[in-house]
């Protein structure tokens, strides 16, 4: 077995040293009745090439976004990841290290996390960010729990602009700790009245920008309304690239920003692992969940980094911790950091504008089709369209013709929730003229 270094000779020598005659003697604490000596209904070990063959066969049964024109988004986006990103994250020193509990021999991971935290704070327009969460949806849930800790209020209003997976995860995590979650109806026109939903029991309002249907909105007055009522504004961003083109949540008065960082450095990967971003204001940092890298000095006075403020965390505080979270999404955060490092200030803005340009061009083309209505006026790289037929059927039909047309509203919200004729369509820097033409041709035929 190629991964197991011990030979039978080693094993018997080691048993001798231990002073037992057989491996079973080391399992004496396992009660007789609990020992499994039957045969598992599983195959025996395989050669590396046999495993590759089996896995390649499975992979080949997926049509993927690289094979055919794809307009899928809704929280996971297809972007080009520079080759050096994947090379660097596969360096064994990053890939095969643990959480940096021993800072003297973990400065690489710690400095990269410090750079990550800085970049997340900059792009969200916030003061400070943590070292990442599992994904955007779990970040959203943690933001609501944090808002409750800060305000000592127990109601959260979740906008109809928020991705249903995010609101569902938040509702799930809140349900056993007495937080009342008010999820608003899907906000198809981007005009819902959230200020009117705030009262003196509201801990926070959660709103997504760009919204799940694509609307880009100025949240400044909503922030003011929240603050006037003593509530916090939590802003969700499911497409991190949008932060290069759209006014930042920090500029508009957000108190907590949670985002999905997959778009930078990480593949869509059928939905995971992705990386949750979490940023807030300085004054709330001690209520933040998750790991934090901080600057300090070593015994020789050299600058270095450590995990800090860990007295918030479960391994110290146990049941009084701010969260039960232990690990984060370190390697995905590293990929995010490297990709954003390569892009730099201009590259990030240019990438964002290129995404917006492709979406804008796509919207122009789709608007010209019969049976297709583009819903938002202001959007970034994704927007909802209303179709003359149920979107799920249209998407299935186009899939058989080799076009992944987008995400049907019913896929996200469930059928019969007023969004059956809604299709979410996303473009990126990888969207070509031919792809747009294929989508338009397909929709024209199916909707005719």
């Amino acid at each position: 077995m190629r991964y197991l270094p011990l030979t039978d000779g080693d094993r018997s020598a080691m048993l001798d040293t231990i002073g037992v005659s057989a491996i079973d003697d080391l399992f004496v604490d396992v009660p007789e009745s609990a020992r499994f000596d039957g045969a598992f209904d599983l195959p025996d070990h395989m050669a590396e090439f046999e495993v590759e063959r089996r896995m390649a066969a499975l992979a080949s049964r997926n049509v993927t976004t690289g094979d055919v024109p794809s307009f899928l988004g809704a929280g996971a986006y297809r972007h080009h990841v520079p080759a050096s990103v994947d090379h660097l994250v596969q360096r064994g020193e990053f890939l095969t290290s643990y959480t940096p509990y021993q800072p003297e021999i973990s400065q690489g991971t710690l400095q990269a996390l410090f750079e990550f935290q800085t970049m997340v704070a900059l792009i969200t327009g916030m003061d400070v960010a943590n070292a990442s969460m599992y994904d955007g949806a779990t970040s959203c849930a943690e933001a609501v729990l944090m808002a409750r800790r800060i305000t000592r209020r127990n109601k959260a209003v979740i906008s109809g602009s928020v991705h249903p997976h995010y609101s569902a995860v938040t509702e799930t995590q809140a349900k056993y700790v007495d937080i009342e979650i008010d999820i608003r109806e899907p906000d198809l026109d981007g005009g819902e009245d959230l200020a009117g939903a705030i009262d003196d029991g509201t801990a926070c309002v959660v709103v997504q920008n760009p919204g799940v249907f694509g609307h880009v909105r100025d949240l400044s007055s909503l922030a003011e309304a929240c603050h006037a009522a003593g509530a916090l504004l939590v802003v969700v961003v499911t497409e991190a690239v949008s932060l290069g083109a759209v006014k930042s949540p920090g500029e508009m008065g957000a108190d907590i920003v949670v985002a999905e960082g997959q778009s930078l450095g990480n593949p869509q990967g059928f939905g995971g692992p992705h990386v949750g971003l979490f940023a807030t204001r300085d004054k709330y940092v001690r209520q933040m969940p998750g790991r934090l890298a901080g600057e300090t000095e070593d015994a020789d006075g050299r600058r270095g980094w450590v995990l800090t403020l860990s007295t918030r965390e479960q391994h110290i505080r146990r049941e009084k911790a701010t969260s039960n979270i232990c690990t984060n999404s370190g390697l995905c955060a590293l990929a995010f950091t490297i990709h954003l490092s390569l892009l730099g200030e201009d590259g990030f803005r240019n990438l964002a504008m290129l995404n917006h340009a492709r979406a804008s061009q796509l919207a122009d083309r789709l608007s010209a089709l019969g049976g297709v209505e583009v819903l938002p006026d202001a959007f970034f790289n994704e927007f909802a369209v209303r179709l003359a037929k149920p979107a799920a059927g249209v998407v299935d039909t186009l899939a058989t013709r080799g076009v992944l047309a987008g995400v049907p509203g019913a896929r996200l919200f469930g059928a019969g929730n007023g969004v059956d004729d809604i299709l979410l369509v996303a473009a990126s820097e990888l969207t070509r003229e031919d792809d747009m033409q294929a989508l338009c041709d397909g929709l024209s035929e199916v909707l005719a």
Partner: protein
Amino acid sequence: MNHSRDLSRNRPAAASADPETVHGHRGLQLEEPLLFEIDNPGATGVDLPAPGEFTSRLGTMERRGGIGLPSVSEPEVVRHFTRLSQKNYAIDMGTYPLGSCTMKHNPRLNEKMARLPGFAAAHPLQPESTVQGALELIDGVAGWLKELTGMPAIAMSPGAGAHGELCGVMAIRAALDDREGGPTTRRRILVPDSAHGTNPATAAVCGFAVDAIPSDGRGRVDVKAFADKLDDDVAGIMITNPNTCGLFEPDMVEIAELIHEAGGYFYCDGANFNAIVGRVRPGDLGIDCMHINLHKTFSTPHGGGGPGAGPVVLSDALAPFAPVPWVVHGEDGFALVEHADDAGDAKPFGRLKGFHGQMGMFIRAYAYMLSHGRDGLRQVAEDAVLNANYVMARLSDVMTPSFEGPCMHECLFDDRFLKDTGVSTLDFAKAMLDEGYHPMTMYFPLVVHGAMLIEPTETESKRSLDDFIAVMRDLVARAKDGDAEAFAAAPTTTPRRRLDETAAARSPVLRWTPEDRTAEAAE
């Protein structure tokens, strides 16, 4: 926020054994500033085409003003992160005996498989007909985990071990609420005092009070103390097995019977499944749920702190409450159940994660499972246990094992052997850094004084264990020879010496700040 960007601080401030160099480099240990400190406006590491004609839809919502990201070319970025990587210790470099973390070899085949375009470029919301291979893979991993644990059901979506705990305890909560037709009146979860901190933290975020059970003198759950706590206020118990002392809990079956008789459920923390995979099916012990850290037992890389994956196997009693989504296999192939409305008779307690879970980790774990097979996995457990017992046997005459008898996959020592030496567990661990080792887990579990928990894993050769043992024995001898000052000063040869964690927490600097902003903040 405080900040200093004085690059001279890469050099030692005080007199030190190290020769001082111009830039603070020491041979192959190369100092590297923050990326923000090598910002060169105008440089870039990515070339993009011009966007062509388009009408902006952003209007007043377009972002104005500088963001503050550094501008750096590709060669500089590659060098920056390569230099950073060289400041990390890693499994690829050497023994990583970090107890309870299962730092085993991470096969590169698994990385290659996760990067197959058929997986990496699949979008989670594609029509199911276009992702049959991905769904079959999830179903395949689920099948292996159910078979290996002897459990009938599984929730695949949790993103880490602690997230799996959340899933299991929420399923318990949902089952109790369902049985009682409203919010359960049961308020307490029993957790042994040797448990990982995530256990009590998880119980708390599910709305339960935590009631600690003491360990007995043998490092196991005190069954009598446990039984005395049982009443109709107890929702369940969370037990790690093998436990954090590296010992199998011999009374699991009795504990299961007692908790079930009392009307509660049995959560098993499967962090240490590596010790028993292929030899014990936890389902045979009577548990109701158990999370499996794919990044431990099934070797998905730890990545400097995630991402992991923590699927949870469930008993028939808890299965109906599993969160969405899950994969079903019907006549038309594989499909996903993503909404409670489509869940039939099941009563999912909700959703724990965006999309369908940590697919990239499922791929890696599947490659690992197929590579080992049922025969290889049993060998994994046996070699992991053998290696830990070998280390314990060869160190027991100079160090102090906390408990008698064989251990499972990790061996626990306490600090009695350091008594009167002036050397603490922490000092001892820091001295190991100079010898080229990542230390064992320290001061955990909390049930013994100055704990040192050593988990070699099955992927260490006898030779590497012998090298490690030689170092440990030498360090013990030096400690006993009265070399306390040298231990207190260790490490001296690492990229950084001991770091001031107190100062870091007292006035936190959590991001880089440009000098002008620092100046403003100081005014």
